[in-house]
């Protein structure tokens, strides 16, 4: 295991490498952008996959993030790591995507699969018996998240699923801290309503 000074040294080295690449792009060397794309694309794909179901949409989101990053690279001041700046861009692009694709949130619970119904039955009978690793649980989460409004979905994903702090969420989204707290409160209430609707549609 790396000692703290060594790990810190490696982080600093990586940040310097990013800074050198960014400086090169700033001077007109577009090819220096590619190593950044290779390095951070996995993280961007993982982020985008939380908000879009189809792979084509995920790719579009990540492409849009990179094009924006390239266009706005001269606004990156280097006060924080490039990764943080890029993630802020990614979260905002994902939020824009959610708002653009805000479907008419009709009831998506009328066609629950047998495995999803079984999982819910198991949860009712014995909550601990319904395992989180089940694919059905994952599918149910996606159905529920798809029913939330864009701000609610973003806050629930960042706050509860990714376990980020309110301050981090405020930095990522550009919202004020009080606004994040208000949206978190409303998002939880919205999620409760969606869950109630899901349960009602199953048992009625």
């Amino acid at each position: 295991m790396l000692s703290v000074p060594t790990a810190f040294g490696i982080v600093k080295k990586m940040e310097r490498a990013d800074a050198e690449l960014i400086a090169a792009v700033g001077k007109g060397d577009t090819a220096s952008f590619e190593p950044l794309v290779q390095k951070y694309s996995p993280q961007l794909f993982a982020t985008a996959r939380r908000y879009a179901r189809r792979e084509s949409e995920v790719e579009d989101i990540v492409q849009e993030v990179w094009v924006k990053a390239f266009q706005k690279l001269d606004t990156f001041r280097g006060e924080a790591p490039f990764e943080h700046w890029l993630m802020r861009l990614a979260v905002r692009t994902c939020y824009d995507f959610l708002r653009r694709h805000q479907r008419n949130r009709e009831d998506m619970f009328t066609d629950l699969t047998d495995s999803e119904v079984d999982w819910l039955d198991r949860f009712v009978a014995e909550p601990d018996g319904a395992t989180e690793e089940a694919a059905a649980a994952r599918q149910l989460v996606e159905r529920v998240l798809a029913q939330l409004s864009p701000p609610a979905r973003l806050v629930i994903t960042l706050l509860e699923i990714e376990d980020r702090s309110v301050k981090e969420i405020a930095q990522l989204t550009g919202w004020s801290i009080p606004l994040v707290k208000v949206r978190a409160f409303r998002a939880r209430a919205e999620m409760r309503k969606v869950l109630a609707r899901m349960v009602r549609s199953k048992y009625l």
Partner: protein
Amino acid sequence: MNLSGLHRKLIAAARAQPPGDQVPYTFEKRVMALVAARPRMDAGALWARALWRGAGICVAFVLLFSALTLLLPAKRSSSDLSQDFEKTMLSAVGQDGDSFE
């Protein structure tokens, strides 16, 4: 049904099964082709463009008002500009009630 418990369970499921971070084959090449096709925005060029547009609009206004001034009939006055100016400057002097004491 315990909705709070269901909420917690589903969030735990989302945490337990995070999305994958696989990158499609040759994705980087496609991104590089996109960014090469779109030149980076030069802030200086944007400002210059905006200022030139503003200058153009100002010139248009100057020409318009100059044309209006030339084309509209001038008011005939009996006195010339110097006399009008003197009248204006001295109009305050000699009014009743003016005193320096």
